[in-house]
């Protein structure tokens, strides 16, 4: 029985390694530009699902009809957009995953985010402060954050 057990373990490991090898992609990093338009608190122009690959260079420009704050979660990049002054986010998508981006009306940046800063390269985790916003938030009464889309960074 024992050597069959070993054979099964070997088979499973081979299977896993084969998966890993078979799945390795390639290609050079590309540049992607996305234009989004937000009107009345919702996305009116532009895709709600932005698909890129790891290490691609991404530029997102957000046009808005009112003063809003655009926040890309995960990468934790937040920019403000106003009529006539679109927000531009430019960064390298060096982390894979599915990252929501949200807007909220108003100019306040979110308080209470761990080490938050507006540096484009930071990958701060500031998400929790938006959760449980209904009752416990102490950062004033800015509007609720609305998810308007996702950035999906696929592995290469």
């Amino acid at each position: 029985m024992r050597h069959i057990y070993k054979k099964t373990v070997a088979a499973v490991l081979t299977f896993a390694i084969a998966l890993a090898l078979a799945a390795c992609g390639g290609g050079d990093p590309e540049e992607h530009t996305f234009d989004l338009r937000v009107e009345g608190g919702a996305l009116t122009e532009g895709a709600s699902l932005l698909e890129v690959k790891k290490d691609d260079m991404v530029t997102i420009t957000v046009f808005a009809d009112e003063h809003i704050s655009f926040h890309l979660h995960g990468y934790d990049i937040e920019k403000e957009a106003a009529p006539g002054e679109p927000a531009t986010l430019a960064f390298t998508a060096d982390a894979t995953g599915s990252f929501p981006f949200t807007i909220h009306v108003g100019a306040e940046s979110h308080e209470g985010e761990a080490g938050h800063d507006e540096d484009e390269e930071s990958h701060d985790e500031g998400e929790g402060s938006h959760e449980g916003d209904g009752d416990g938030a102490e950062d004033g009464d800015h509007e609720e954050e609305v998810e308007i889309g996702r950035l999906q960074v696929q592995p290469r």
Partner: protein
Amino acid sequence: MPRLARLGLVAAGSAVGLGVLFPGLAHAHGFGERYDLPVPLYLYITGAGAAVAFSFVVIGLFVRATSGPHDYPRVNLLRWPAGRALVHPAVVHSIKAVAVGLYALVILAGLIGDASPVDNLAPTMVWVIWWVGLAYVSALVGDVWALINPWGTIFDWAERLYRRADDEGELSFGYRYPDRLGVWPGVLLFLGFAWVELVYGDSSVPGRIAQLVLAYSLITWGGMLLFGKDEWLRRGEAFSLAFGLLARFAPTEIRVLSYGPCDSCPLSCRAGDGRCIGCGNCFGRAPVDERELNLRPFAVGLIRSEAVSWSMMAFVLLLLAMVTFDGFIATPFWADIQNSLYDAIPDLTSIRALALLASPFVFIAVYLGFSTLMAVSSGARPLVGDLARTFVYTLVPIALAYHLAHFFSFLLIQGQLIIPLASDPFGFDWNLLGTAGYRVDIGIVDARFAWITAVVAIVIGHIVAVYLAHAIALRTFSERWPALRSQVPMLVLMVGYTMTSLWILAQPIVIEA
């Protein structure tokens, strides 16, 4: 664009659209955002195929085996000084003290710390490090919770103080725990916990966490006062039951060789064959040379020849349901169901609560259905109830594998929050250890690596489950062919459960925080 990719985009797009419709729900899940990418189709299919293929390999082993495994290989770590050091009272008491310290710190942080979940120790410690992290440790290392449980430790300390006044006394009203209650109190409390994690909207609010922990502490100590500490831990303390169940999969166990300590053990800790495994009470009182801390193969703790109680079966199925429900409520499929129910029940929280309540019943119904099929296929006419209660542990590896796969990236990303929080647990801008400025690295685990780990884990969980079920079948039925025939429905159930787990992992995440 390939058709499947278009379908995927539509699914993801509607997922996002629903997120816009129900923005307020985006936070109801323990704590912490998830950035998992859905497992791609080719991996899903490969995993499913592998699970089925390897199942037949396992069956083949049992068809040809001459006798079932009766005992498993063990290595007693206490034979080495390093092993003995692990169980030394000084080490044990230090670990317990640290655990109580963390418990107190979490409550304090919840009560007086910053209300923002990210800046406060409580949400990360409870939902990431403890609930998710300890599940990993329990399953892959051993029953650590039995050691670090702060409620037990604090009660022990209180009992010791009490004994200073009254030598013979026990800190308990001494009520006999009615056997018929089984572990139902634990089942109910665990259901309550599931509700907090999956339905309750304020689960990430530090103040609420502190209140809930305090409430649960009172309930736990109340139970201990009524029935005695060990009895309550074994019957009513939801997390001892949950982590203890996961720890059956783990490759370590504690064991007492002689019968002396067990005779005076308040728990009937000896399995049917007279062995005392996993009883902390006996282990603590046994003479040093009669104790073992064994390394053992994975999952053998889940093999048993006797039926568990009805309440224990319910608990296991509740745990399975909760684990699966956790992932299921993030799928577009569930979002559609919620959408269609919204007319009848215009409150998302209520919809989710009802679904949570229904899920264990669904699992129980399906499981009993397949147990009936097992009984019928065997041709030997065993009682369905006995069969169901004997085999229920065999599903645990599948749920465990899904749980580990589902939380892998989450633990590695959100778990990093503990680093800045260690320096500033209350959000008061402290920097005790110099790590307060640490920024979480969201790229710590590549999506492809996470996918492959997840699929491999699920396939392994499936193979282990099939193996366990066959091993138990050979012990339960006196003849080989009825045993093997009984496993055909079980295999169908397991393949179905594994496919469901893989399917959930392949779904885009909707309305998840």
